[in-house]
């Protein structure tokens, strides 16, 4: 579950809440791409592997989202949904996931996320699971 905030001029900001770290990643991915295009309008005819690592959950979330932007740019892929598993292995978190969606289509783009920032950024464990707050550079 995620919600968009509207506090910073020029930026997209959202809070994501999830029961597990797996879900936190897939929801924050959805929030990220939702800023750029209406995912409802996308079809789901392609898939792409996404991998990210991090020594902390915070680093993992940052790398995960940056990887999505990287793949969107270099593979020309628009994401509709995510499916991800996080493992803790060899002293770090490893996310192995799959993105589902279609080929990029500029006519669907509403605005463009340049980069994920660390401004006001946090990832924390809560009573109900996990919560993250993310600001991206639009």
């Amino acid at each position, binding site marked *: 579950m995620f919600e*968009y905030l*509207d*506090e*910073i*001029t*020029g*930026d*997209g900001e959202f809070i994501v809440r999830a029961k597990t770290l797996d879900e936190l990643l897939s929801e924050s991915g959805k929030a990220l791409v939702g800023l*750029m295009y209406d995912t409802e309008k996308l079809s789901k005819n392609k898939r792409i592997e996404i991998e990210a690592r991090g020594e902390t959950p915070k*680093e993992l979330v*940052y*790398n995960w989202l*940056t990887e999505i*932007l*990287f793949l*969107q*740019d*270099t593979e*020309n892929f628009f994401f509709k949904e995510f499916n991800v598993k996080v493992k803790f292995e060899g002293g770090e978190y490893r996310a192995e996931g799959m993105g589902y969606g279609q080929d*990029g289509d*500029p*006519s*669907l*783009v*509403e*605005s*463009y996320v*340049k*980069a*994920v*920032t*660390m*401004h*006001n*950024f946090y990832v924390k464990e809560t009573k109900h699971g996990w919560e993250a707050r993310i*600001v991206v*550079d*639009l």
Partner: protein
Amino acid sequence: MWKEKLERVGDVKWRFAKENREGMKIDAYLYGTKPIVDGVEENAVQQLTNLAMLPGAVGALAMPDIHTGYGVPIGGVGAYDYEEGIISVGAVGFDINCLHPNTKVYLANGAWKRIKDLANTWDEDEIRTLDKEKKKETKSELLYFFSKNDYRQIVRIVLESGDELLVTDDHPILTTDGFIDAGKLGLDKRILVNKIEGVEYEKPEKFLIVDEQRIIEKIREFGLTGGNAERQILEHLRKRNLLNIESTNKQVPILARIIGFITGDGNITITQKTREVSFYGKREDLEELKKDLEALRFRPVLYSRDRHHKIETVYGDVEFNAIENSLHVQSSSLAILLAAFGTPVGNKTKTEFHVPNWIMEMPNWIKAQYLAGLFGAEMSSPRTVNKFNFSEPTLNMSKSVELEENLIQYLEEVRSLLADLGITASKPRKVEGYRYAGKSGETIGYRIEVHGNPENLIKLWSQVGFAYNKKKKELASLAIAYLKIKERIKARRAKARETAREMYQNGVSPRQIVKELSGEHLTESFIKHSIWSDRGDPRIDPEFMSFQDFIEERNLGDGYLWEKIERIEIQEYSGEVYDLTTMEDTHNFLANGVVVSNCGIYALATNLKEEDVRPRLKELINTLYEKVPAGVGSHSKLKLTNDELDLVLENGVDWLVEKGWLTKGDKEHMEEDGKIDGADPSKVSAKAKKRGRPELGTLGAGNHFLEIQVVDEVYDEGIAKAYGLFKDQVVIMIHSGSRGLGHQVASDYLQTMNKAMKRYGLSTPDPQLVYAPAQSEEAQDYLAAMKAAANFGFANRALMASWARNAFEKVFGQDWESLGIRTVYQLCHNILKLEEYEIDGEKRKLWIHRKGATRSLGPGNKLIPKAYRRVGQPVLIAGSMGTSSYILSGTEKSEEETFGSSCHGAGRQMSRKKAIKEFWGDKIQKELTSKGIVARATHSKVLAEEAPEAYKNVDLVIDSVVKAGINKKVVRLKPLGVVKG
């Protein structure tokens, strides 16, 4: 709560005093008229004060277009001292400070010198030193060196290995309890040592190893004669000072190790299709190799890939994942250079090769470097066969059957190099059972073994050791210490045995003998056996710790280990003592969060007037939209190769000039001539490059645009004339950045710098605002990468400018020269630079961070293009879509007050989402049309989020900087048509 603390200190100048926030080192200033300040967000002011909190802050300013950014405000300028804030961290290692003349100093090139011999060369030598935090050996230049005649107490510290140190009593020694002065050292302390010494330095006899003629021969031998290949290779090598290499060249030891390593675990490919030098190994080792290749000024790229393997065995299929690392340099010149140096090229099993002749003629310390490279790749690691004894190190090599003779000969050559160093090894012998018939023919294996007696092993590991192999190097140092300690104990036991026998012969009672002689490693039973048996040389005490336990107890990492002190003697000494200090980490600061994607503006002027363009405006905008790809995922018509991208990163607009797409005249009318020196493509990640490769010459999305504008007001005729501008003239303005490449660089280094902050124990007022000491590796890497991204940004805008010219040519049916399309100026407004300003009458070097701010220099400044120098630098200010833009000129006051900085645009006042909610794209389109503006965008929402109403009134922003005296107004530009991504 932040804004209320702003006090007005001038007509358009506001101060936030440092007393109002703890941690601020200086006051922060905001420039703007009252209405501007009334409209500023609270967060933006807080972010302005962040700039004043960083170490070494000299200036913290915000321009009137200030709005909230990440950590620091957009429109912010931060200036940080180059020198101030230097914190000296005690240099590590006992081989520095006041030392005895004969003390050995280990050099980074692999040799050692006595400290007294450093007197004439210290300013050229680099020494090995330990970065204690990273537990990694690094190299350091020497900051100063002197000797003085002194009479003082000298401390002789004898370690359990028998190695000794002679130091003055005030000399700090690194122990398990931190630094302790030698005079105060107790026997209970353990001290840090490294046992890998290298070979004593000896100046090579001067001879030419490789010259231009030899390079040309190699180029021809491999048939690389097509096109400009030969000229380019020679030029590349000349640039790197690698065309004529004499034996005394400082790069020779580096080349020797690299060549040794390639002969083991590397490969050179020189074919018509591929010219590449590749290396294989562990990531940490390849990183060391990378540094060496970079020291030669080549650009290696490190790849890691997770590979899935499936192997059929007699037990069934085994599957596993392994990470494969490799380092590649795609460079014809390096491949040819190495070939000219006698390195094997192509498939080594099928190629005849020898130890290069020139190596044979070098002093021992360079021979040792060649062997270290080879052994790092191919020789077996130090390991014990039982608890205490080491197996004989072996060097195995294989070759195709036809080359058996050559294989034996090569191993003989290696053996003779070892003999020069006083190390003995067995003759090459066939590896039994190794004969392998594979796809590429039959191969056989041969090996030599280094003799296993302790002195021989110690010589091998301490003089030669292993290059580019951290694990083996670490084990070698530990093994040397272990062997030395073990041999000393054995010697003590032998001596005790002899003494016991003598005492017994002289009639001393066994009980008395045991009482007198027994102790550690000398048990009662050992002494009794010595008396009554006729056993020969004693073996090591079976209770002695195993090598494995020794490693666990003593290892610090990277060849450093803790050793016990056996005894300390104080001696009187009269004579020279020597002092040297390493270059330490200097602690001034570069902030990364301040600088991100290197956006900028490019302005082109034409000879056309509004009336010429108006009738063809729609066609022109459509043609521009076709020529200049815009929007998310838009790909350039130009596909860059890896090498080409590197050239763009290194040379910016120069590359386009070389290609003939821009002229020298264009380039000379740009900030930094469109190329920032010191850019290092190898500091840009492979990911960033992958994003950048298809993006050169694309506009991108967001607030970036290309506009056709008309000069609708001239404020200063004189300056306008100098800039070549006149009323009703049509101008083209491009606002874009370094695209995905720049964003990826920022994301990559945000993390690097974050980690660096943790390591240096630095704190930040905002997590996005990360920084590192300016001289730290992280900061320097970032700087080199940021410069590369800025060059990409410069080239990106310039390439679009050249395509915009083509669009005009197509629509008007004339060439661009006759349309008078020329560059007015190009600048960037997200950048970090080292600049010099006068502060309180004193010239100081400062790190100037401009985030959404423009450089603005006054008349006479040498950094301004000649044609404009008299009137000041053009400052290009982009309005928001559909509103006016301006060209201003810089003043002297901007250099005095704002570190040569001004605003960059209108500045947002409404978030993008809100703008989309409030303005419909269609409505915007109509509004623009009603103003006579033709707009073309990929999507109507794109227009909405950039609606003019979402921005501050640009006129107010301009008023503020003009009133502040930072700029003069030159012309105002009105949009005629817009292309947006």
